[in-house]
């Protein structure tokens, strides 16, 4: 009797042990990965870009950052003569022209910038000569993302590419 009971306990213990081990085997790496993702600090990246003086161009017109980085981008309007506002708008690939047209359609009352447009990943406000503005965003998946100024007529020539690299 005692022998049979001891055997049942032993078998039960063995079952628990197997279940525990199995769960642990599944849970540990999963939990570790969750911990690793949530605990890992985002890489902080500061990017600076400006207008090319009074010319309709960004300087530089190519930027690079790693995916997932917390990006703080500052745009400086270095124009001296012309009273024209610029901004910096990052879009999903292939959407720059459509965003420029949407900005134009929105008109001056919308500040020449379509609000709530899902094709826009990040955007600074417009700013005049001698001023600077900034925007914070998380770098998207690796790829090449166009950016442009959405002031009417500017986007056609005032544009560039943000290269987002894998980590």
């Amino acid at each position: 009797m005692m022998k049979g009971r001891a055997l049942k306990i032993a078998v039960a213990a063995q079952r628990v042990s197997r279940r525990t081990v199995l769960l642990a085997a599944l849970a540990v790496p999963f939990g570790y990965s969750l911990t690793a993702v949530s605990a890992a600090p985002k890489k902080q990246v500061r990017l600076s870009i400006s207008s090319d003086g009074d010319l309709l161009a960004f300087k530089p017109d190519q930027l690079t950052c790693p995916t997932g980085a917390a990006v703080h981008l500052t745009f400086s309007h270095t124009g001296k003569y012309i009273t024209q506002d610029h901004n910096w708008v990052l879009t999903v690939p292939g959407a720059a022209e459509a965003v420029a047209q949407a900005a134009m359609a929105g008109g001056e009352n919308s500040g020449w910038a379509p609000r709530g447009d899902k094709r826009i990943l990040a955007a600074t406000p417009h700013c005049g000569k001698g001023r600077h503005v900034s925007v914070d965003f998380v770098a998207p998946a690796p790829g090449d993302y166009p950016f442009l100024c959405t002031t009417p007529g500017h986007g056609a020539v005032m544009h560039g590419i943000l290269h987002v690299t894998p980590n």
Partner: protein
Amino acid sequence: MLRTLSSLALTGLLATFVATATLAADLQSPDMVKIGLHILAGVYGDMDRKLAAAQYDRLPHENQEFQEGSGALRDAVAHEPTAFKSKVEATLADTLAAAQKVADTSKSHDKTQVSAALAALATSMKTLNALFPAPLRAEPGTVDPPWMQHGGKAQPPNK
């Protein structure tokens, strides 16, 4: 007598040409001149795009930018010898008048009229550019990407 006068006139013309050419070759701020001419060509390109898109109401604004942008070229030649500076300023005044004409005709919303005014502006800008050495020039219609010129469909930075 007539031959003497002709000789004097020819000599004067030659002297003026040589003086202008020499001055242009020895500009004190060639980089600033280049920027000044590029600013004007850039705004011209913007005017061209607005006309192609029939955005007549934006053309007065472009003219304002053109007038403001001319300050860069004016500053660039500020310290040049008086003869050359005067020549540049006179030609620039003609160019600015041509830009103003674009704005004035834009009120008509008549593409033919505005196109003619824009063509006159381009001609005036070519005259202005001709005062400077070729490497510094920015001819109208050459600053923008080729696919944007003359109302061509925009090929944006969609890479």
